[in-house]
């Protein structure tokens, strides 16, 4: 039984195929580029081709992310908080606390051993607490995103960003550039500032080990280090955790499909 999870995010669209709710068969990721439908098509085509599947072999599609309602062929949609928690516990079964720094917003999520969300808190307003801020810093400092993390690890005296507003934080960074602060110190300062804002969300939820980082920043060793230094905890992470929300939705799709098969729905 193959279920598909699609995480249609603002920055990228991720897809996974899950077999019998246990085995990860395929993953795919494409930039959303403002066209979620095209991104979903590309993700599905890539996974179907990779696994040599017939279209009908995907028995259930569950979507998540900001574009979750946009894919009309879905069977079910769930919020990315619900999905990320399920996915994180699937990847790291000891997970009780999930940190998701997404493009548009960051979230701290408490979860049970089954991945059920117990409490959550998200930054609601300011981009300074979200991944978009890192993208903007990459642009201002002219350091490609994939190089930001490794460079930050070489910082000797991280230069923290004190502003809580993304626009003012960018001004602060420009001032640091003018003052000749080494680039690696600025980069680590950016990650530490983001980690501190994330920590305030985590405190609201109640920090409980194990902590798992999900979303695009799992590829960024600078952010992982900043989060570990700030919280004093080991932070689970892996490249696959970028797909945690897609995995979670595929899992919930599998649960739902099993229920439907056990007791077929009646009427509309």
């Amino acid at each position, binding site marked *: 039984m193959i279920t598909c999870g699609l995480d249609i995010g603002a920055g990228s669209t991720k897809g996974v195929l899950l077999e019998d709710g246990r085995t990860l068969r395929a993953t795919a990721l494409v930039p959303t580029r403002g066209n979620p439908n095209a991104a979903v098509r590309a993700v599905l085509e890539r996974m179907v081709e990779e696994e040599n599947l017939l279209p009908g072999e995907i028995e259930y599609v569950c979507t998540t992310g*900001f574009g979750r309602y946009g894919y009309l062929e879905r069977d079910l949609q*769930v*919020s*990315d*908080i*619900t999905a990320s928690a399920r996915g994180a516990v699937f990847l790291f079964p000891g997970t009780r606390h999930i940190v998701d720094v997404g493009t548009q*917003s960051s979230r701290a999520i408490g979860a049970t051993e*089954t991945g*059920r*969300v*117990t409490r*959550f808190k*998200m930054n*609601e307003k300011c981009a300074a607490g979200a991944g978009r801020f890192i993208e903007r810093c990459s642009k201002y400092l002219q350091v490609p995103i994939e190089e930001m993390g490794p460079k930050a690890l070489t910082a000797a005296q991280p230069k923290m960003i004190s502003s809580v507003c993304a626009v003012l934080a960018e001004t602060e960074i420009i001032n640091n550039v003018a003052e000749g602060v080494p680039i690696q110190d600025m980069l680590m300062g950016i990650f530490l500032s983001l980690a501190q804002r994330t920590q305030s969300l985590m405190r609201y939820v109640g920090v409980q080990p194990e902590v798992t980082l999900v979303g695009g920043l799992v590829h960024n060793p600078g952010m992982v280090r900043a989060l570990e230094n700030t919280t004093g905890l080991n932070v689970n992470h892996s490249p696959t955790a970028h797909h945690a929300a897609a995995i979670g939705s595929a899992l*919930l799709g599998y*649960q739902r499909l099993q229920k439907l098969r056990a007791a077929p729905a009646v*009427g*509309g």
Partner: protein
Amino acid sequence: MASLLPVLPPPGTPEPVPEVEISADFREFRALGTIAEMVAFGRKVIDDLTFPTARAWAKSGRGVIGCFPVYTPQELVHSMDLLPVLIQGGGENIDITHADAPLGSFLCSVSKSTLELALTGRLQSFSGFVFPYICDVSRNLEGIFGRVLPGRPTHMLHLPQNFHSAATLPFLMAEYRRFIAMLREAGGRAYSPEALTASIELFERHRARVAELARLKLEEPWRLTFTEFYVLVRLGNLLPREVHLELLERALVEASGRDRRPKDAIRIALVGSFCEQPTLDLLDLLEQVGCYVVDDELQMQHRWYSSVPAGADPLERLARAYVSSPVDIGVRATPTTKGEAILAKVDRARAQAVVFLTAKFCEPALEDVVLYRRALDTRKIPYLHLEFEEKSTSYEQSRLQLETFVESILFD
């Protein structure tokens, strides 16, 4: 004290254009046959900030009393041949261009939009205003109204917060007598115990119908949506009770007979929106994401007490009803029982969870949330806290939080 005249619109400013016109005998409401018709027309009436029902009543030369939330003894207003109309701000349909001058930044939207209504000539059909002292903002609003609308009496109604003192009842009755004097000044006919007794009886019948509708929403929430329930009940705070009573009776017959399939939704108690009202879009969202709202605090005026106790003096009966009310919301100071109150509410409603929907900067509501949360934690009852403003336009964050909350209960 500085003059408020500079904030008034300059001479020549065009008057707000009414969108809904209602006859003096309210026949338009008697023609509404189905709930869908009532809700569609009701939404137009609620959205028209020139208060079409107040204008309709005033056509016969009688006075209209604007009542700020939460509770006013409206039976008293009715008995003096005045129409009580609840003024709950301007919702999302008004821009604040004048009220920011006398009111500071970190205040609730409802205070500003209510003042904006006054400053932009939308309350012309009102002959007086009453402000129950529910918070410091409401207290100040009464004073400001007195200055910006000279010639229209305003009244601050002091409702007791100590319900166990021997002085409570005499105090409240004295307050009601003071209120009667203001109603006379606003054009009401002379107070008569007989007229008040008749008004109490009418309001009792009306309250019973509202309670019946609320019971239906509690027992079989799939029979009418929360938005339908809300609009139907809110209309009662704009219409003469006699007209609304007929409307409710027709709505009850239709709603009870509806053949609708119950959804796989969770039962929630909605707490905290007793004064400023969330937008209809936000209320819609609650059920869209999979909640049945089976208990709420949105239109408490009709639900402050279930019945008025018997007695010889109708003024005393009315005062007793208020004092003995079991209502325990943010504007009643009972900190020691807040925890018990929220747990009792959850039990009564058989709610699986609580959603706190509080207006930004609403101190009475926000203070209670702390006490409520502590009590809910002891019984591991899930809750979610959302803040709103009248002028909210995007609900994506609220939707995400609500969906996650519902899914955390639905999926084990």
